[in-house]
Each structure stands twice: as structure tokens, then as C-alpha cells.
């Protein structure tokens, strides 16, 4: 198979942002295809600018290209002007690395990290000339694999994929390659695709939807279990790598030739999170915490900056200020010998004054805005969602920011949270107002931007049973905020389209009945649904109606305790009874302290896999526990369910009970 470049260059100058399609990034490899190797096309089904920086994809790209039995190239969803031209000219989806057709690959592997990209999965399959439904594919078609956070409920797109991978991909991509390469080598026509899939289903972390049956009765899902003739496991467990230091990837982070989001060096400092925010799926499914050794972090930063020429590095994780001894990491990075100033950023800033001081130290070269995420407007509701930030914490952080030169502060909130009242919703505006009052002490015209998202309950969280607010209710709350915000000078309110929230809600906890809905939306031109200029709720509503499905059944309905959930045959390690108890606690306004410095609550993530949090220090991080300044009488700490030997270690390391 030869390169499609000669055809592409004929018309690329008529295409918007042609640099999206040329490849050539620093760090790119041009692998040699050979029959002895399993060839992977790693696809991020959104634009190049969004997809290129994805660290998960880059990690697997390197690992697969380092192996002898596999190779990997990359592709991203072509924007609508490009796909139109590709179809006119009969050009299939192609890789950016060697511009080979997708048809030249054994495996098409999709990174799915948000629900609204599901129609783009179909768009990419269509451009690759691959049948949508796994049942329509045969041995000549590539294997279609999905990974990323959305695979914790893959049911809405289960019919389109051959395999879903749950959890960390570092090890399992090698195991899949081994089986596939062997299957190719034997080329035994008797050993069918079904046998290949059966073998794959034996790998931990691998879910093969076609080997399972979903049973429905009067519009309710009753069970999903392996078909009688299949040896696939009843429960598929996620994969977890225990030691991040074994995987110092990406070693050669791709440096794009054109501007992308997060255009900087990214070094992952830990995986997992123990904060326990109840709305946060990422925090729940990536447990336990696994820190990268500080020494390795510093080497990766130093070598990465030198190799890429970036002057900005981001230390990535779900709560980077919680990294053990983060202060000395920051000092080391900021004082390293470089000929130009280096900026450091910590995404997901904790809300406290300590963090702001750190930010001021980090951003000597270039100051970006400061964003805090209190998530809810009142202390009561923040207990419900377990984001234990007091008003005082937030205001101290804000004071620290304004006093150190920041004039603009951004605050991020969710509306539509469980138990939310109008008082909670309006609490958002009063917090913003207090923020501005503090700002006026330091600046003439301080400003605060409040961004409001609509809450979508996610699988594997305590809120997985919660009935999402309706489109109308979310809109009512947003208008409530808009009216209250109008009177306040310096307050800018932004909100997420509540119609998109509805569609996210349908897909987030949906089941296999949604496959024809997604297909219909795609057919009606519903691609790039994350982009407001392409999103259209009426297509979704029509598609639901034509399949006789009701939005309330999927999104707005409260689930029952004994109800089978579409992801109950898949496991992120969390015990369902832990999640249910946490849900009951939430409804009682009861917070739950971080398990890193309190006794284990036995959520299942550590015990189930026989691992523990890998942290250099189990004491609360600098800046205070949760950075909250919360006094103990304000909250009750739940007693743990099960005794464990590791308690002693935790308690002896200076944790107050």
C-alpha cells in the first residue's frame, strides 16, 4: 500500500488549516509495515488540535513502536471541509505518519474520552470503509478497539466495536499485539475471527461486547452476561499499572508544527485521586494514587524541555498540588539552568492560598489566568458533592491571587447537582460577588468569570443513580443565575449549552439500544457534536423518537438500588455497596475525608487489586488537608468498614483522627 500524499497535496491548499493533515511532528516515527507486525492506527475522533496533545494516545504510540511485533501510526477526525473533499475524491481515512490508508492497518484503535464524539467514531469508520457493526465485519476487516474513560460504559457504542479496553493501556496493548501477530502468522482460515475474539476476551481488562448478551424486559435492562457458548468472564476488571516509574512515557512527546491545545511539555506526575469528589468519574476510576518518583519527574522535565524547545511545562494529574513535596519539585524546575525563562503550570489547582502562592512562583515568565473550581455555591452542597472547600478557603485563595497581581479570576461551577436548591444555585453569584469585593481592595476594575456546566451523572461514581436535571430545569437555573449576575459589575457569566448536557446524559449511562440512535444522528450529518456550530439537539430527539426511546428513561430517571446498571458487568474496582453508601451519605449532606491520610473506606480500588496508594508521603499535602481549613466539628468522618494493616502506617505518619 502506497502513500496517499501525492493525492492529498493536490488540494490541501484549498482546505482549512491544512497543517492538520501533514504529520511531520518532532517525535513522529515512520514505521515499516510488515506481515510480522500488528499494525495499529490510533485514532482520536476529534480535530487534530484537540487530539494531538492526548497523552494516552502518545504513550501507546511509543510503546507499540518500540515493540518488535507491532507498529502504530495516528489519525484524527478530518474536519467537515476535508471529509467532504476526501469523499469527492474517493480518498479514505489516512494516517498522518506515512499517509497510508486506514485499510493498511490491522487494528483501528479509538480513544474515546467524551460522549459527544461517538458519532465521530462512525464518521472515521465510514471514511475508512469499515462496516459500522461488528457483526457485519469479517476476517478481512480491521479489528475496532476502543479505549479511554468512556469504555467504563461502552454499551451505547458496544455494537460498533470489537473490543473495549478498561483502564491503563501500557501493558495490555502488548498482549493484544502478541495474540494478533500470532493469529496473523498462523493465518489459519479455520481459526475464525470469533476464536480470535474469544482469545482476546481472556486478557484482563479486555471486554468483547459481541460475546455478551444484553437482556431486556419491558424497556428495562435486566442483565448483561457472557453468551452460553462463550468463555468470556462474567465481570471484566480494569487494568492498572502499579509502578509509574516503569513507564516514563512519552519519552519523545510529539511537538506539533501547528498550534494545538495544551501546546507545551506535559509530564504526568501521578495517576489516580483520593479526594473523592462524588461527581468526578476520573477520580473514581483511576484509583489508587500512583505517584511518579520525584527524581524521574525532574529528569523528564529537564530532558523534555531540552529536546522539544518548549518553554512551558505542565505537571499533569487530577490534583497536582497534592503531589508529595510538590514545593521542592517546583523550586527545582524553576531554578534549573535554562537560557530562557520557563513557565510551569499545575492543572486542576486546589482552591487555597498556598496553591496561589505557588502559582505566583511558577509563572514568573508568563502569567496565565487563574481558575478555581469550587463546583457548588454553598458549603452544604459542597458537602453533598464532597468538594470540601469552605467559603473562607476560596476567598483566601482569591485574596492571594488579586494581591499578587492577577486582575481576572475564573470560577467554575456545576448546576443540576443532587439536592440542589435555588439557594445553592444563587450561592454561585454571591460567591462571585464576594470575590469581586476582595478584588476591589487591590484593583480598580477586577473581573471574575463564572463558568457554569450542567451536571451529567457518570458510571462508577456515587451519583450514578441520580436522575439528571431536565433540559428545562437546567435552563431555568442558568436563567436564574443570568438574572442575578446582571446586576453585578465585573461579573461575566458563561454557561454550557444545556441541550448538549442532555445528550451527554443519554449517552453517559445508556445501553445497547442507543447504537441505532448514534447511527441515525451520524446519517443526519451530526458529526463534531462537541462543536457548538455542529451540535443540533433536534437530530438526537428525532433519532430517539424513531427508536421509540425516551430521554427520561436514560437521563432524567433516578435509578433504583437493585437495578442492573449497563456497566455492572465491568469493574473499575469500586464496590457497588461502597458507592451506594457514599450516595446515601451525599443525600445526608455528609462529606468524606481524603483516604490518603484517614483510614481506608474500602472502596475496593486498592484491596481488589492487591495494591496500595503509591505515595512518597501519606500526610496531608502542604497547604492543609484538602486545603480547606475545615474544623473537625464541622464534619463527621465516617468509620471505615473493614480493618486493614495499612492503617497503622497511615496513623503513625502523623495523621490526625
Amino acid at each position, binding site marked *: 500500500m502506497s502513500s496517499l500524499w501525492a493525492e492529498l497535496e493536490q488540494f490541501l491548499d484549498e482546505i482549512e488549516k491544512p497543517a492538520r493533515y501533514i504529520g*511531520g511532528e518532532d517525535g513522529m516515527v515512520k514505521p515499516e509495515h510488515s506481515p510480522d507486525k500488528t499494525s495499529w492506527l490510533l485514532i482520536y475522533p476529534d480535530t487534530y488540535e484537540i487530539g494531538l496533545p492526548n497523552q494516552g494516545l502518545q504513550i501507546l504510540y511509543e510503546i507499540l513502536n518500540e515493540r518488535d511485533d507491532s507498529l502504530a501510526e495516528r489519525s484524527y477526525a478530518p474536519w467537515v471541509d476535508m471529509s467532504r473533499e476526501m469523499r469527492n475524491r474517493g480518498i479514505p481515512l489516512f494516517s498522518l505518519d506515512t499517509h497510508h490508508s486506514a485499510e493498511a492497518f490491522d487494528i483501528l484503535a479509538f480513544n474515546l474520552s467524551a460522549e459527544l464524539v461517538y458519532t465521530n467514531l462512525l464518521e472515521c469508520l465510514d471514511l475508512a470503509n469499515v462496516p459500522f457493526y461488528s457483526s457485519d465485519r469479517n476476517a478481512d476487516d480491521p479489528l475496532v478497539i476502543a479505549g479511554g474513560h468512556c469504555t467504563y460504559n461502552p454499551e451505547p457504542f458496544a455494537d460498533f466495536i470489537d473490543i473495549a479496553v478498561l483502564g491503563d493501556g501500557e501493558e495490555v496493548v502488548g498482549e493484544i499485539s502478541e495474540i494478533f501477530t500470532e493469529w496473523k502468522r498462523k493465518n489459519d482460515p479455520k481459526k475464525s475471527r470469533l476464536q480470535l475474539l474469544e482469545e482476546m476476551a481472556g486478557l484482563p481488562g479486555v471486554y468483547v461486547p459481541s460475546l455478551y448478551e444484553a437482556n431486556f424486559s419491558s424497556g428495562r435492562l435486566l442483565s448483561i452476561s457472557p453468551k452460553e457458548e462463550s468463555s468470556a468472564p462474567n465481570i471484566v476488571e480494569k487494568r492498572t499499572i502499579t509502578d509509574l516509574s516503569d513507564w516514563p512515557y512519552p519519552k519523545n512527546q510529539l511537538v506539533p508544527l501547528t498550534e494545538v491545545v495544551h501546546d507545551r511539555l506535559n509530564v504526568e506526575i501521578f495517576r489516580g485521586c483520593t479526594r473523592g469528589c462524588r461527581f468526578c468519574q476520573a477520580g473514581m476510576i483511576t484509583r489508587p494514587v500512583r505517584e511518579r518518583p520525584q527524581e524521574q519527574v525532574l529528569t523528564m522535565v529537564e530532558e523534555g524541555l531540552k529536546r522539544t524547545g518548549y518553554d512551558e511545562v505542565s505537571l499533569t494529574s487530577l490534583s497536582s498540588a497534592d503531589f508529595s513535596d510538590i514545593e521542592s519539585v517546583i523550586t527545582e524546575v524553576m531554578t534549573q539552568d535554562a537560557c530562557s525563562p520557563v513557565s510551569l503550570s499545575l492543572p486542576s489547582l486546589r482552591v487555597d492560598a498556598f496553591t496561589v502562592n505557588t502559582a505566583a512562583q511558577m509563572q514568573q515568565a508568563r502569567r496565565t489566568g487563574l481558575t478555581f473550581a469550587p463546583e457548588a455555591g454553598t458549603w452544604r452542597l459542597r458537602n453533598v458533592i464532597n468538594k470540601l472547600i469552605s467559603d473562607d478557603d476560596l476567598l483566601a485563595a482569591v485574596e492571594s491571587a488579586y494581591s499578587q497581581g492577577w486582575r481576572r479570576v475564573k470560577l467554575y461551577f456545576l448546576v443540576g447537582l443532587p439536592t440542589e436548591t435555588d439557594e445553592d444555585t444563587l450561592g454561585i453569584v454571591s460567591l462571585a460577588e464576594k470575590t469581586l469585593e476582595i478584588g476591589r481592595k487591590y484593583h480598580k476594575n477586577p473581573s471574575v468569570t463564572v463558568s457554569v456546566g450542567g451536571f451529567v451523572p457518570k458510571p462508577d461514581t456515587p451519583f450514578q443513580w441520580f436522575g439528571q436535571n431536565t433540559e428545562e430545569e437546567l435552563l431555568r437555573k442558568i436563567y436564574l443565575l443570568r438574572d442575578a449576575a446582571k446586576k453585578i459589575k465585573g461579573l461575566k457569566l458563561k454557561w454550557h449549552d444545556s441541550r448538549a448536557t442532555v445528550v451527554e446524559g443519554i449517552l453517559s449511562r445508556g445501553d445497547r439500544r442507543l447504537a441505532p440512535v448514534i447511527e441515525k444522528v451520524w446519517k443526519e450529518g451530526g458529526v463534531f457534536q462537541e462543536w457548538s456550530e455542529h451540535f443540533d439537539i433536534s437530530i438526537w430527539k428525532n433519532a430517539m423518537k424513531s427508536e421509540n426511546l425516551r430521554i427520561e428513561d436514560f437521563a432524567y430517571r433516578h435509578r433504583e438500588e437493585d437495578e442492573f446498571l449497563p456497566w455492572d458487568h465491568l469493574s473499575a474496582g469500586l464496590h457497588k455497596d461502597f458507592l451506594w453508601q457514599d450516595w446515601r451519605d451525599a443525600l445526608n449532606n455528609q462529606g468524606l475525608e481524603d483516604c490518603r491520610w484517614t483510614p481506608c473506606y474500602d472502596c475496593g480500588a486498592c484491596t481488589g487489586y492487591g495494591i496500595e496508594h503509591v505515595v512518597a508521603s501519606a500526610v496531608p499535602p502542604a497547604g492543609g488537608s484538602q486545603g480547606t481549613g475545615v474544623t473537625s466539628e464541622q464534619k463527621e468522618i465516617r468509620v471505615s468498614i473493614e480493618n486493614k494493616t495499612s492503617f497503622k502506617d497511615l496513623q503513625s505518619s502523623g495523621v490526625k483522627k
Partner: protein
Amino acid sequence: MKCLRVRYSKLGKIRFVGHRDVARIWERALRKAEIPVLYSQGFSPHPRLSFGLALPTGFESEAEYVDIYLDDDFFDIDFKETLVNQKLNDSLPDGMNTVAVGVVETSEDSLQEAVDSCIWKVKVSGSSTEEFEVSREKLMSSDTYEIQRERKGKIFIEDIRSQVHSIAIEEKNAVDFNIITELGTKPRVLRPTDLLRAMNPEIKTKNILRKEQLILQGNTRFEPLSFQKLDPAAPAEVMA
């Protein structure tokens, strides 16, 4: 004050990378090459680089220029032409290569102001060479030549005759032919595609390549590096 002037090429796939992205590529290349660029002052400091005339996305070039502002110490102590050239070349992506480096006084006109014309090579199809010669003759023999150009979404009629210094067929192939043309850049850059479209709307253009950017003084044309070299030796004449 002096600065480092670099001539570089932009060929192949990277021609689809736009001007602003090229600036970012240079900022990273300089850090990789450990060349201590001076930074602007202020809230958001930037490396002080100054580029020549923007090359339209999709066009190739053998003659792009960037002026890099550096501390005088750099030239007094560290500057070794071949080493700097090599280090920069190694730090640039595939398709971008340094052609030459030199030192210029920063008091000179900026590159954008200094350059008066560009030499372009274009592959032309959709017209016979005979047809092309007829339209070329018409163009070169008239005193005025008005074409339609788009600027900020509006259509302007402009007389560009004085900007066409030369235009000629260089090479004939089976279905197409190459032309070489020198076009003025003042008051605004005249693109070869705009000119050719005006000469014959049927014409299709491909492989557009900027071969030179030139500074005119009297009747002499200078290449920007040789023109401003600190060495007062007689500047080399590039074209008659």
C-alpha cells in the same frame, strides 16, 4: 546593536504550515539550539524575532528570512558562523533548513521594509505556451495593467504594471511549463497567482516557489544577507 539574520528554506509538506506557526517553530528551534535570544519586556515576554514578508500557506520557498535579536556579547564571544548555522539547522523540522546566516545592524530597515521584490517560480497548466506568450506580450507592452484583488473581504481594482519586473517561460514540459517572474512587493506584495489569474483565468498554478527576496538600490539587486553583511567588502550582485 546587531542581530543574526538567517536565510532558510521551506519545502515539501511543511509548506502547509502557516506564518504564525513558523514563528513558533523558530522560537522552539532557538531554545533547542541554545541561542540566547533577547526577550521583550512586559507582562508576557516574547523572544525578539522579526520575520520577512509572510509566505502564503501552501507556497514553498528557498529564500525565507528571520532576524534574531541577541546580546552583543553573543557576537563578540560566541559567534561562529558555521557552528550556529549547523545548530539551527539541526533544530529545525524536516523541510525547513538554514541556507546561510549572517550578522546585520539592527538600525537597518526591517526585512519587511527593506525587500522590494521577489523572484517566483510557478508551474503553469491550462494554457498553451503560445497563448501564454500572447498574454505576456500584452502585459509587458502596456503602461498600465489593472487586476482585481481581494483585501479584507473587499474587491479592489489596482494597477500593478509597475510591479511586474519580468516574467518568462523557463522550461516546457509535456502538459505544463514553468515560469519565472520577478514581482514587486510595494506598496503591497503582488502574488504570482493573482497576476497569472488576471492574465488568463483558465490558468492553473502548482508548485509555487519563492526563489529570492531582493533589495533594490538603483538598478542593482541585492540578496538581504549579502547586502547588509557587516563586512564592507563589495556586496555580491545576485541578478543584473
